């Protein structure tokens, strides 16, 4: 899965929730863009649906996620 595809799903989730804005950039924090735990869970589920299998991740790594870049890294790692 491409990094741009992850950002695209994030963007569409935010837009659907009425929180859409300018294009997401890597350094934007999740707090700034109001990307909350439900949004993150939806992102994971949508990625799982796209790749046809469950994401493989360690919940402890979630604590270090702060920015859009962190989300992308996390998803790409979990999907690999």
């Amino acid at each position, binding site marked *: 899965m491409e990094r741009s595809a992850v950002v695209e799903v994030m963007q569409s989730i935010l837009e659907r929730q009425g929180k859409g804005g300018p294009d997401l950039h890597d350094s934007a924090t999740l707090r700034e863009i109001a990307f909350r*735990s439900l949004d993150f869970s939806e992102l994971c589920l949508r990625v799982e649906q796209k790749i046809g299998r469950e994401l493989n991740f360690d919940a402890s790594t979630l604590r270090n996620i702060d920015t859009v870049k962190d989300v992308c890294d996390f998803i790409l790692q979990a999907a690999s």
Partner: protein
Amino acid sequence: MKLQTANRFSCEGQEGSLGDLPALFAAAAHRAGAGASDRLAVISDDPRMLVASAVGLHAWSADGAIVAATAASPAVRSLLLERGYSLLEIGPSGEWARLQRTSGGGAQGGRIALLTSGTTGTPKLLTHTWESLATLRAAGTLPPHRWLLTYLPGTYAWFQMLTLSMFGAEQALVASPHCSPEEIWDNGLAAGFDAVSSTPTFWRYLLALRRAADLVRVPLAQITLGGEPVRQDLLDRLRSLFPAARLTHIYAAAEVGAAIVVHDGREGFPRGWLADGGPGRCRIREAGGILEVQSPYAAEGTGSKDLWHSTGDRVEIRGNRAVITGRAADDVLNVGGRKASAVAIEEVLRANPLLSWCRVRGARAPLVGTLVAADVVLAEAGRSVTREEAERELTAFCVAHGLPEWMVPRLWTFLDRVPVSPAFKVERLHG
């Protein structure tokens, strides 16, 4: 109870009287070597043979069960054999019949076993007498009707209609092979009918697939809804299409019978019935938000007639009405530790003009365990927007109507038509 032998029965172009049917059943049973002393579970896909078998079992005062071939899964067959019912399979028009005997299970006479899936999906058997099955007798004297038989043979609702015809004066039945709602409707048109008893889903399906102008050509005098919660939008739609029909909705359960009967075209029932027990022979009350029923029609083995049965169905007070919203166990979704009511979410979505139907369920999701998902069918107004636009608008609608963030559906599945179970009910799905 005395069979109304002159009542008419029509099926696939053949019409006769109920009094003709016991002989049809007896011929098939004897062909297979079965007799009145056997406990028989009759399995067939011929609707005429299934009705004939039920009437025949009554004529023999025999114990038995009626099972549509589509419902006769290996688990159902095993259960019936374990409980002492020999399986009598009957082919179309009784052309062939074969018997699988079992031992055990002493016959009591005049007992009818019903298959229900309960809340767990595991089949179980409930036993009724003809007296406890025939609860619609208490609904008062009905004018003559020809009823379109829409229910899956062998179910409690099917027996309600059958016993209405067996024991009620001038109540005819129009049956057809159990297929889709529109096929049942079309098959019935040739025979003619003026009354329909069905689930709400049967109508929602029909209204989505048939032009209203075609449906209203049938001069319905009676529309009865049951088997699922009945919503005001459907009552209003049916009232506008069939202004001359009496509109009735019934709350019934296989364990307790038809407990609540309402004719005023309004969702729910007067809340005062919960305080005074209601006008019928069944008494009702609310305990902890759940409907309880005390019933003279309770199935055997479910306790004395004085026992209050917890139905497991949630009842809500809305102004001067009490509304049954569905099974409590199906309603609550746990989204990351917060509770979301599927019923409450559906109430909101149902008010959106883009949709003609919706069902809310939980979808298993990483991190929070469950996310709210919605299966929807678009109404005419919703077909001109893209799915992305529809998702955005529906999400905004939920937020604008006060649903907290965790109750707003996250996943949307757009269906072409209302999905129905063989019993024409909406099945709850658990993610």
